[in-house]
C-alpha cells in the first residue's frame, strides 16, 4: 500500500520488459523515489561507470505518496549517474507523468543497457512494450509528445521524452514530461539519449491505494489547510510563482549577475514576477497568462506565458506564439541576470526552447554567462562563435546562441558541454560558476552564507534544491537566521538536507516545506504505507539517503576537496548590497558540517555513522 510493490525492468539491449516485485525491505529503509531508486542504482551498478555507457542504468521513480490525495503528489524522479558531474544524479519533476505511471501500477522503471536503434516505451497498466522510434528521432519534445498522444488516440496518456539536446548528448539535457515539466538537472536527458530511448508514454487506470484511507484523507486535508493559510504557499507562489523572489533577492544583493561579477542586476525588475504581470506596451497583453497546477497540487505555482507575437524571437514562428511553460525564478535568473539580458520575452522564448528541446535552463544560462565572460576577457572571439558577438547583455547574440546550443550547431556544441569543460578548454577554469561541474543557481553565497555550504556539499553538484536555506536566511521559515553569518549554518544545512531527502523520497514537492514540517508529512506517509513512519524515522531515512549518496560519490572518485566553491565566491568580494565587501566563508562552516554529519576531517562518513544508519 502506498507502494504498488511492482518494478518494471526494461532491458533495452534485449528489447524486453519484465515485472518484478519491489524489495520491501529497501522500501522501508529508503521510502521511495530519490532514496529507493538510488539504493537500486548502487546495488546494481559500479559507481565508476561511464555515465553515457550502456552499463549506466536509468531509473524513473515514483514515491509512496505519488498519485495519492496528499497535496503535491505529482512528483517523480529520474535517477542515474550524471554525465555533467560524474556524481549521483537525481532530477525531480512534477506535472502529471509520475502520477500516471503510479496509476498504471508501477513504483519504478529501471532501464538497462542500450537499444540498437531508437525506441520508445509504451505502457498501458501492466502491459509494457518497446516500440520503434525511428520516426521520432530528431523530433522535439513537443512534436514527440503530441505524436505519441495522437498515435494512442488517448488525450489522457502522459509522455516523458527527450528533445534534440538529449539526442545530441548535451551534458545538461533534461527529460521533459507534459510539454514543460522537467527532470532538469545533471544531464539525465543525455543518459536517456545514450540509451537510444526517445520517450515513455503511459496510461494508467489501475488506481493508487493506501493503507488507511480515512487517515490519508484526514492528514491530507489538514496539510492542505496549512498550505492554504501560509503566506508563501497560499498567496506568494500561486500569485507570482517562484519569480516572487527576483526583486527580493536582487534587493538584498544576492543575485549573481554577469557570471558572478556582481550581485545586483539593474535589469532585475524587467524580468521579475511583477513585470510578467504587467501589460506590454506593444499589444496590451501581459507575458503571464495564468498559473497552473501539477497533479494534486493546491499551490499551483507554475506559470503559463505567451510571448508578444510581434517580438523578434517569434515574429515568423507561429509554433512559439502559444501559451507555454513560462519563466520560473531560476530560469529567469540564469537566462537573464547571469547573462545580463533583461528582455522578458527573449528570456521566455529561451525558456520555451529549453522545454521544446529538453535543456536545463540553469546550466544553459550560467554556461552562456561564462562564455560571455570568456568573450569579454578575449579568450574567445567572434571567430570562435560563428560571428555571434557574445557580449554580456546582447539579446540577439543570446537568442542565437540558445538556438545553436539546442540544435547542437557551431559554438553551441561547446556551450552544450557546460561551463566547467568550456572554461577549462579556453584556459579560464576560474570562470566556471560550478561545483562538481554543475552550475550553481540563483542565490549568491556571498550574500547568503548558508547557500555556499549548500552548493559545496550538494551530492548532485551545485543545487538549491538539496537544502534551501534561503527559506530560513531570507524568508524566515521556519525561523529567521542572518544570511551574512556563518555560525549555525552547518546545522541548518544538515537539517535541510536530511528533511529534503525525505520529502523528495515521499513523492511530494519540496515547496510544501515552506508551510509543512515532518510533523505534517510523516503522518501522510504513515497513512499510506506499512511500517513505522514516525517523524523521527522519516528524518532518519533522509539522513540515511544523504549518506548513501555521499558513499556513491566517494566510490565514484570524489573527495572532500570537491566540497568547494568557485574562487570568485571565496576571494572576490561582493560589490554592492547587504553583503558589500564580503566573500563566502566556507572554511568557517565546512569542518563543523563534517563533524555534525559524523564524517571524518576529509569528509568520509565514519564507520560509526554508517553503522548507526544501517549502511
Amino acid at each position, binding site marked *: 500500500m502506498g507502494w504498488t510493490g511492482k518494478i518494471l525492468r526494461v532491458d533495452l539491449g534485449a528489447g524486453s520488459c519484465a515485472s518484478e516485485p519491489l524489495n520491501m525491505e529497501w522500501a522501508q529503509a529508503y521510502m521511495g523515489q530519490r532514496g529507493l531508486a538510488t539504493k537500486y542504482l548502487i546495488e546494481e551498478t559500479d559507481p565508476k561507470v561511464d555515465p553515457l555507457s550502456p552499463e549506466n542504468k536509468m531509473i524513473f521513480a515514483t514515491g509512496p505518496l505519488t498519485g495519492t490525495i496528499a497535496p503535491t503528489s505529482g512528483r517523480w524522479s529520474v535517477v542515474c549517474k550524471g554525465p555533467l558531474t560524474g556524481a549521483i544524479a537525481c532530477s525531480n519533476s512534477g506535472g502529471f507523468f509520475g502520477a500516471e505511471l503510479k496509476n498504471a501500477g508501477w513504483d519504478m522503471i529501471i532501464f538497462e543497457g542500450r537499444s540498437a536503434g531508437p525506441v520508445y516505451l509504451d505502457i498501458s497498466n501492466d502491459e509494457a512494450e518497446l516500440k520503434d522510434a525511428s520516426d521520432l528521432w530528431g523530433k522535439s519534445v513537443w512534436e514527440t509528445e503530441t505524436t505519441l498522444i495522437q498515435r494512442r488516440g488517448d488525450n489522457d496518456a502522459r509522455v516523458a521524452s527527450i528533445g534534440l539536446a538529449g539526442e545530441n548528448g548535451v551534458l545538461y539535457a533534461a527529460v521533459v514530461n507534459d510539454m514543460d515539466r522537467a527532470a532538469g538537472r545533471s544531464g539525465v536527458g543525455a543518459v536517456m539519449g545514450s540509451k537510444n530511448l526517445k520517450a515513455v508514454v503511459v496510461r494508467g487506470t489501475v488506481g493508487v491505494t493506501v493503507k488507511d484511507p480515512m487517515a490519508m484523507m484526514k492528514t491530507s486535508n489538514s496539510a492542505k489547510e496549512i498550505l492554504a493559510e501560509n503566506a508563501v504557499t497560499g498567496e506568494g507562489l500561486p500569485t507570482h510563482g517562484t519569480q516572487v523572489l527576483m526583486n527580493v533577492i536582487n534587493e538584498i544583493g544576492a543575485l549573481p549577475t554577469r557570471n558572478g561579477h556582481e550581485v545586483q542586476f539593474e535589469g532585475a525588475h524587467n524580468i521579475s514576477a511583477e513585470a510578467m504581470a504587467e501589460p506590454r506596451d506593444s499589444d496590451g497583453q501581459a507575458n503571464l497568462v495564468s498559473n*497552473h497546477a501539477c497533479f494534486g497540487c493546491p499551490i499551483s505555482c507554475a506559470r503559463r506565458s505567451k510571448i508578444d507575437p510581434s517580438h523578434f524571437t517569434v515574429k515568423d514562428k507561429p509554433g512559439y506564439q502559444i501559451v*507555454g511553460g513560462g519563466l520560473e525564478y531560476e530560469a529567469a535568473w540564469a537566462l537573464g541576470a547571469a547573462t545580463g539580458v533583461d528582455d522578458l520575452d527573449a528570456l521566455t522564448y529561451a525558456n520555451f526552447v529549453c522545454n521544446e528541446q529538453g535543456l536545463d535552463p540553469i546550466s544553459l544560462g550560467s554556461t552562456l554567462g561564462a562564455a560571455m565572460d570568456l568573450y569579454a576577457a578575449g579568450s574567445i572571439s567572434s571567430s570562435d562563435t560563428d560571428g555571434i558577438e557574445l557580449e554580456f547583455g546582447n539579446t540577439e547574440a543570446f537568442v542565437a546562441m540558445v538556438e545553436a546550443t539546442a540544435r547542437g550547431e557551431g559554438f553551441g556544441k561547446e556551450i552544450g558541454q557546460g561551463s566547467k569543460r568550456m572554461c577549462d578548454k579556453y584556459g579560464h577554469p576560474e570562470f566556471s560558476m560550478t561545483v562538481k561541474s554543475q552550475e550553481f543557481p540563483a542565490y549568491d553565497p556571498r550574500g547568503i552564507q548558508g547557500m555556499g555550504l549548500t552548493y559545496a556539499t550538494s551530492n548532485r553538484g551545485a543545487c538549491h534544491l538539496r537544502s534551501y536555506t534561503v527559506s530560513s536566511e531570507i524568508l524566515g521559515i521556519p525561523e529567521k537566521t542572518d544570511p551574512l553569518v556563518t555560525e549555525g549554518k552547518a546545522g541548518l544545512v544538515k537539517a535541510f538536507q536530511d528533511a529534503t531527502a525525505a520529502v523528495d523520497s515521499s513523492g511530494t514537492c519540496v515547496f510544501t516545506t515552506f508551510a509543512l514540517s515532518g510533523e505534517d508529512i510523516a503522518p501522510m506517509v504513515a497513512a499510506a504505507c506499512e511500517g513505522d513512519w514516525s517523524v523521527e524515522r522519516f528524518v532518519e531515512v533522509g539522513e540515511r539517503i544523504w549518506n548513501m549518496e555521499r558513499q556513491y560519490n566517494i566510490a565514484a572518485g570524489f573527495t572532500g576537496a570537491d566540497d568547494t566553491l568557485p574562487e570568485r565566491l571565496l576571494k572576490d568580494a561582493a560589490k554592492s548590497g547587504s553583503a558589500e565587501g564580503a566573500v563566502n566563508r566556507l572554511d568557517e562552516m565546512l569542518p563543523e558540517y563534517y563533524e555534525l554529519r559524523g564524517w571524518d576531517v576529509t569528509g568520509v562518513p565514519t564507520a560509526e555513522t554508517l553503522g548507526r544508519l544501517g549502511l
Partner: protein
Amino acid sequence: MFKALRMENDACTGCHQCEMMCSYGKVGAFNPAKSVMNISVFKGGAANIPSTCTQCEEAWCMVVCPVEAITVNSVTGAKEISDEVCVGCKVCTIACPFGAINYDADSGIVTKCDLCGGEPMCVEACPTPALAYVAEGSTGYEKMRSYAAAMIDLDDSPVQ
C-alpha cells in the same frame, strides 16, 4: 430547494484533486480514470474546465433507461444509478447531451455523479473556489455577472 454543483472555470488550476477524491468515493482508490468529475485541459494548461452531471430536472438518461436503473434521490435531487439494476446497455450515454454519464468497462455498468449523498467529495477536495455546492438557483448568476463585468464595469453602472 435542492443544491447543485457550481463549477467556475476561471478558478480551476487543473490539479485533479477533485478527480482523486471522486474516484476514491466510487472505487476505493485514487484513480482519476474512474472519476465522474472530469477536468479538461486546454490552451497548454491555461484553461482548465471542470465538468460533471448537472442533474437535469428532466433527465434524459433516466427517461431512456429501459430497466429503470436510474432514480431520483429525494433528498439531494441526484439522478442515481442502481448498480444491481443497470444492465450496461449504454443507451443513457447516447441520450445525455453532455457526456456526463459513461460506461465503465471494468464494472460492466454506467457511472455518473450522485452528489455523494449530499456531501460532494470533489468540493471538499478542491483547493480553489472552482467547485462549490450551492442552492441550485444560484449556479449561473455569478458566472453571467462575471462575463458581463468583463464587458462593462458594473461597479460604475447606476443600477446593479
